[in-house]
């Protein structure tokens, strides 16, 4: 089920939350687990058992890790088996076809694809990249002795499946919410923040992301080789806004819903487009993914307390994996490595200069990021070539006039909401609660209007 649907807003939310608030605390997690499983299975029940099997295996593995505290080798064995099992599903579903394609291309064999149906459309188990990482965080932390194993299966199942963050993040580590799983209260302030964040997130997704996304969609439909240079740029800028508002909108909705349930999920986006360097950008963009990789890959590899060569190798591994995590295709790998190159350049000499400038550094960052989205958005290399051909050699035409007129205001709004200006304003008017109420009511009404007459409401994370 998607957050941005009438079904979620006007069937799922009222039923789930009403029952949740009425139930005594000891049943709340069980109810959340049930609701989350329903939420997950709605629309695609067939991959449901895969998630359950991962939950079960890791639940048992953690208990064993605790029991065999003294037996090192056995402990390691259990850990590795559970790791292989959990990551195995991800590899199998997400990456098998990519490997088969490449083996076929290199060897000339014709191994049939594993998942791709006749239309070539791959359907991954929904949210597998997200929940796999969450489960891993738990088992790894138990193995390291950082946290105690969860004995209650319902609590553990609730942690993994918790519907707000199940399908599109933020990636919540077990240690982020393990205390709240056992005891939590919903304060009025949490409700206030939760509802506000949920509505703002919904607005990001439905009013901003979907709206500008339609422009990128048009450019794709017309064909990159058919549009003028200005329109190609408009399209790519639109995509940059789409992916930001879509993704951060989902995270906001998740955080908001979490608060209404008594959970405090970690922040996932912090105005990434105002960064002055790629280094800063990645501290502000999809923060939970970055911190996951830092904690479970980069630091275990030795982090930056290693020799120069090893450091670059570590960075390479992290950015290769970051790219690859976003999709099983070469373009995602290039996308990750592109950032690696920029980060290394910044690390060696550029960063200090960037931080001194106010305007130029931001121009550099925006340019670098927008270009990266081209790598991200276009998975077929020849189309990517066509797009770059349009972006960097001048092709005239009047087509952009129409699209600038149609999307100009929306793009300006997107630019405005990419900055913390609204947040600053909000902090000033915090006491004028009726003004805030009116603003939120307007956003919510518009969202409902756009959802009722939806023509374009995509879910971008099927590849993740």
């Amino acid at each position, binding site marked *: 089920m998607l957050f941005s649907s009438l079904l979620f807003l*006007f069937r799922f939310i*009222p039923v789930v939350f009403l029952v949740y608030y009425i139930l005594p605390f000891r049943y709340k997690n069980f109810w959340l687990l049930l609701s989350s499983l329903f939420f997950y299975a709605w629309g695609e029940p067939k991959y449901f058992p895969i998630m359950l099997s991962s939950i079960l295996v890791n639940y048992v593995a953690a208990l064993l890790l605790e029991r065999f505290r003294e037996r090192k080798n056995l402990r390691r064995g259990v850990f590795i088996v559970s790791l292989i099992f959990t990551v195995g599903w991800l590899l199998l579903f997400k990456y098998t076809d990519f490997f088969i394609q490449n083996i076929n291309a290199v060897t000339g064999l014709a191994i049939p694809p594993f998942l791709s149906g006749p239309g070539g459309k791959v359907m991954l188990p929904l949210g597998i990249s997200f929940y796999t990482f969450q489960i891993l965080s738990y088992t790894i932390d138990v193995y390291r002795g950082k946290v105690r194993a969860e004995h209650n299966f319902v609590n553990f199942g609730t942690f993994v499946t918790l519907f707000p963050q199940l399908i599109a993040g933020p990636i919540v580590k077990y240690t982020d919410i393990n205390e709240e799983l056992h005891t939590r209260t919903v304060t*009025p302030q949490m409700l*206030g923040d939760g509802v506000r964040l949920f509505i703002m997130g919904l607005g990001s997704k439905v009013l901003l992301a979907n709206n500008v996304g339609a422009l990128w969609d048009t450019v794709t439909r*017309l064909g990159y080789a058919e549009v003028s240079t200005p329109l190609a740029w408009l399209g790519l800028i639109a995509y940059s806004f789409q992916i930001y508002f879509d993704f951060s909108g989902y995270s906001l909705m998740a955080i908001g819903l979490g608060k209404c349930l008594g959970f405090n999920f970690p922040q996932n986006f912090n105005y990434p487009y105002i960064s002055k360097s790629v280094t800063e950008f990645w501290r502000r963009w999809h923060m939970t993914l970055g911190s996951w990789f830092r904690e479970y890959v980069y630091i275990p590899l030795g982090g930056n307390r290693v020799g120069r060569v090893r450091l670059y190798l570590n960075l390479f591994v992290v950015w290769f994996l970051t790219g690859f995590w976003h999709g099983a295709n070469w373009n995602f790998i290039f996308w990750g490595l592109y950032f690696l190159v920029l980060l290394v350049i910044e690390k060696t000499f550029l960063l200090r200069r960037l931080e001194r400038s106010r305007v130029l550094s931001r121009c550099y960052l925006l340019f670098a990021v927008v270009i990266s989205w081209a790598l991200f958005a276009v998975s077929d290399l020849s189309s990517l070539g066509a797009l770059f051909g349009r972006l960097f050699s001048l092709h005239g*035409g009047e087509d952009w006039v129409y699209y600038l007129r*149609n999307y100009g*205001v929306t793009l300006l709004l997107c630019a405005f909401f990419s900055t913390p200006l609204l947040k600053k304003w909000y902090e000033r008017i915090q006491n004028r609660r009726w003004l805030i109420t009116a603003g939120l009511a307007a956003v919510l009404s518009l969202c409902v209007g756009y959802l*009722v007459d939806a023509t374009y409401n995509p879910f971008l994370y099927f590849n993740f």
Partner: protein
Amino acid sequence: MLKKTLRALREYPWVILFALFILSYTVLDMSFTNKSYSELENRPLKTRPKMSFSALMSGDYDEKFDAYINDQFFGRDGWITLKSRTESALLKTENNEIVYGKDGYLFKKYDRIDGEKYQANERYIREFFEKYPQQEITFCVVPNSYEILKDKLPAGLSLVDEAAEIERLYAGLPDNVTAQNVYPTLWEHRDDYIYYRTDHHWTTYGAYLAVCAYAGERGMIPPPLEAIDSQKVPNFYGTYFSKAKKAGAKADVITYYEVPVRSVTVADEERDGLYDLQKFETRDKYAAFLWGNNNRTVIESDQNLNKVEGKKTRVLLIKDSYGNCFAPFLCYLYDEVVIADLRYLPKASDLMEDGQYDDVLLMYNFESLASDGYLAKLRY
């Protein structure tokens, strides 16, 4: 406890409002009886899907249920209008793939042809022509309104070049086929009311101009428009409007001509007249012409101005809905007019072998020719 929370929540009035809105709206939405048809959108609405295990497992049920919730959402028309107004406030000149042109004209944003379907359809048509080398066939492709009313399109919008495509379709036809180009006459009359503002069809006058071009081409006397009794039906909001739901759109006026006929047979059933007058009372007014789209319609009349001595002349019109307001005028050119819609027929050969036709006219709007899924029936 609850009281205390509620008191504390006064600091956050939006929480209470949000909860009230979601709850009351959910109850409202669930308690109202379903509508099966939307007047505003001119289409049937989805009703509650049937649950079955296999549908549930394939995700089919869920998809249908989503669509059902959307279609039956309480106050749907109001929400749709809210969206359309917001789009306009964002200075957009389009909504749901419908472009807002000048003078209240709405246009389809037809910026890309589905190449595969188009090529296949072109092939079917060619095969059809070659299958009946003895039969005189006229091939007529009618452009969409935007092609003729280019001046009314918003600046910078480039759409499919239908004129060029139609040229291309007309090139290299076999000897038995004549291309009937209606582009010049429509272009010449582009300042007249030849296309609806809010609908994807041409007006009856546009169709009349095409009949005149057709008659002129073969030296026939055209219908005497002034002499035929006509009626006007105001307040027509067509399919483009139904998609865009543009607030403040200007309604169209339908004109229909009461051509005196001897008999009208629609799908083997005798009907009273050429028009389904009841339809003029509804939203779907264009469906009044020729009683909507039907498999086979036969019109007999005594209006033929181009009598051939000792012979009952017949024409076969194979058409999409553009033909529905066009067909009545053919009564002035032939004794009997047979109208066929491939969407509702098993195959074209039934028609062709059905009888001797003096002329066969294959007439489609360009967009439906390029995207229609039923032209394959021409081969069989």
